[in-house]
């Protein structure tokens, strides 16, 4: 038989972990409410059972976009039953959603998750009592250990066969469509079935919060943590690893290909394509893999442990003057990795206005694709201040993002202030598996980009610099790329980099910001011929802030369902970048650099 089961549950209830265990897929799981921002689909191995992981939700009112997706899907008739993942350690709040599911005319089976934690705390839950009171099966499981998931699926299949669909009211007489009534039901069921040890002692999580959320220590600790993330990511040894990768490509890989191609009597254009185009382009990018691995590893730990959500709590007040709430902090930090997931993460924000604002400013956060540009330029022109300059770029991106929030929230994205409501889950020890999955996902994404879009761009750039418009072999002065570069160069002349090579790099960088560096290495020539210190700085600033890459523009368009806003975002960033680069360039010239 074919079945489709929908996974429904509160944010942070372990739904994604259940999904991963059932389907064997590698969905990343975080410890902040709202990690699953769109529905995901997977099949249980060797069966015809499809599992749909819906966005986590506290409720099924159609009032928020996330809740509406979940509700519409459940009622669509596509799923045969709902598997309601319930965090047993947080039973009462989780059962509220269960009472709503009971009203949707679909068989419901509860996966009572985190039972291992309940037992470890020396507590007990009487499953039979819960089943009797709510009239649906409760299957105790531990998703993280994979315990009892077979029984869960069996119960779901059985529920479909029986077609038992009790309503919330089958066991009670009062009208039950108010939240208060549903919560009373959840409360009674919990009190009845859950033997809690009420020690009154603060938990470990409470003790950690005493320090990390302490009135005087919270902000200094936050700053130290964020600074440490940078210091570790861009420390000496991580730059050293980068050099190793770069040398590996420039030396070993390049030589190996040359030997093979020479042996095969390959034509010289192919040799040039491979070593000057592909290896130069991709090698220049993959050299940054060490930093990216380290950065994502640290961000994963911050997210998985539950610190990120606390940072949102700490920062909420400080972010309000800029039209943002504390929750906007999370997508912005994700933006240090990549703007696309950052834009997706805005789905958890409370209002459409705040989402729009965050989507417009998140691309200013310096993503990992921009890192190669700073390392290359700072290394060449400001070698002894390299780390400070790189750090400064990240700070500048943040400042521009925040100031943009201030400006945009007073002009184009005006609107009423909204509430800030956020569940703060207990700290959780990040698991090795989950952390590595998170890092792997992002790193794979980066490598995949290197192998696809950057590869293609490298080939195109190589072609355009090797040939003229009439497809004869080009010199530097009559190649396709130099003609295009010369055409747009005047735009950048006031910023100090009116050289056609710099202009072309800016243009190709729109396909992906890594391609800026790839283009410069393919075109060849020393950076010192193209830039001086002032224009190098202005170029870094410009590439930090200018038009986001096509993937980001597409994400802006699809998330805001508007081409107009995507165009606005690109135009706004271009103008901001131009102005900042202009100011920096002229300031540098004035002080004589």
């Amino acid at each position, binding site marked *: 038989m074919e079945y489709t089961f929908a996974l429904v549950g509160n944010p942070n209830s372990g739904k994604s972990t259940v999904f991963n265990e059932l389907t064997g897929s590698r969905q990343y799981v975080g410890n902040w409410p709202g990690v699953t921002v769109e529905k995901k689909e997977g099949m249980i191995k060797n069966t015809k059972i499809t599992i749909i992981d819906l966005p986590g939700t*506290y409720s099924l*009112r159609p009032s928020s976009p996330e809740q509406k997706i979940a509700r519409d899907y459940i009622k669509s008739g596509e799923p045969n039953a709902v598997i309601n993942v319930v965090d047993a350690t947080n039973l009462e709040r989780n059962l509220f959603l269960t009472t709503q599911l009971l009203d949707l005319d679909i068989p419901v089976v509860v996966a009572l998750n985190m039972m291992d934690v309940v037992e470890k705390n020396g507590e007990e839950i009487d499953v039979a009592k819960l089943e009797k009171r709510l009239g649906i099966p409760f299957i105790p499981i531990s998703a993280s250990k994979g315990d009892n998931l077979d029984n869960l699926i069996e119960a779901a299949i059985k529920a479909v066969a029986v077609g038992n669909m009790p309503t919330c009211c089958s066991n009670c007489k009062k009208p039950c469509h108010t*939240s*208060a009534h549903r919560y009373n039901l959840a409360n009674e069921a919990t009190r009845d079935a859950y033997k809690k040890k009420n020690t009154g002692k603060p938990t470990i999580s409470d003790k950690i919060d005493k320090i990390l959320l302490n009135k005087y220590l919270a902000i200094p600790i936050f700053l130290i943590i964020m600074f440490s993330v940078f210091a570790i990511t861009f420390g000496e040894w991580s730059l050293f690893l980068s050099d190793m990768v770069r040398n590996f490509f420039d030396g070993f890989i390049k030589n190996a290909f040359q030997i093979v191609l020479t042996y095969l009597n390959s034509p010289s254009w192919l040799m040039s394509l491979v070593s000057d185009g592909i290896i130069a382009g991709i090698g220049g990018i993959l050299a940054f893999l060490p930093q990216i691995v380290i950065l994502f590893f640290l961000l994963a730990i911050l997210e998985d442990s539950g610190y990120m959500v606390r940072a949102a709590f700490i920062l909420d*007040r400080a972010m309000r003057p800029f039209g943002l709430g504390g929750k906007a902090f999370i997508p912005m930090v994700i933006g240090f990795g990549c703007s696309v997931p950052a834009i997706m993460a805005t789905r958890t924000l409370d209002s459409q206005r705040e989402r729009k604002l965050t989507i417009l400013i998140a691309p200013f956060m310096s993503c990992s694709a921009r890192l190669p540009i700073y390392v290359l330029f700072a290394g060449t022109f400001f070698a002894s201040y390299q780390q400070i300059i790189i750090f400064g770029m990240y700070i500048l991106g943040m400042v521009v993002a925040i100031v943009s929030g201030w400006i945009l929230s007073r002009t184009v994205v005006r609107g009423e202030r909204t*509430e*800030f409501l956020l*569940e703060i889950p207990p700290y959780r020890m990040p698991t090795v598996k989950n952390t590595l999955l998170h890092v792997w996902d992002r790193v794979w994404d980066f490598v995949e980009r290197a192998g696809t879009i950057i590869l293609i761009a490298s080939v195109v750039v190589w072609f355009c610099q090797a040939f003229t418009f009439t497809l004869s072999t080009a010199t530097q002065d009559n190649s396709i790329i130099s003609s295009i570069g010369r055409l747009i160069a005047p735009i950048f002349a006031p910023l100090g980099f009116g050289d056609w090579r710099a202009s072309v790099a800016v243009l190709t960088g729109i396909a992906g910001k890594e391609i800026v560096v790839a283009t410069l290495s393919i075109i060849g020539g020393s950076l010192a011929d193209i830039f001086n210190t002032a224009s190098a700085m202005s170029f870094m600033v410009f590439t930090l802030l200018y038009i986001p890459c096509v993937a980001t523009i597409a994400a802006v368009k699809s998330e805001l369902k508007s081409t107009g806003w995507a165009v606005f975002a690109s135009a706004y960033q271009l103008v901001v970048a131009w102005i900042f680069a202009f100011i920096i360039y002229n300031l540098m010239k004035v002080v004589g650099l």
Partner: protein
Amino acid sequence: MKTIADLKVGEKATIINLTAEKRLYERLTDFGLTDGCEVEVIRAAPLGDPILIKVRGCQIALRKADSALIEVR
């Protein structure tokens, strides 16, 4: 009328009424902030706002302005 915003850190009270408009009312009640429910103020953020409250066994952060819409006894 006393509201959650008036409670000191560590103080407990029982919700008696919500004066929020419909949308916020729904969100607050979804989080379990319903009449008759006990709340405890756990702490305030370092800048004094938002505050962290304990309700139905879990911790929820909300702004003072919003907590002033929740009347307690």
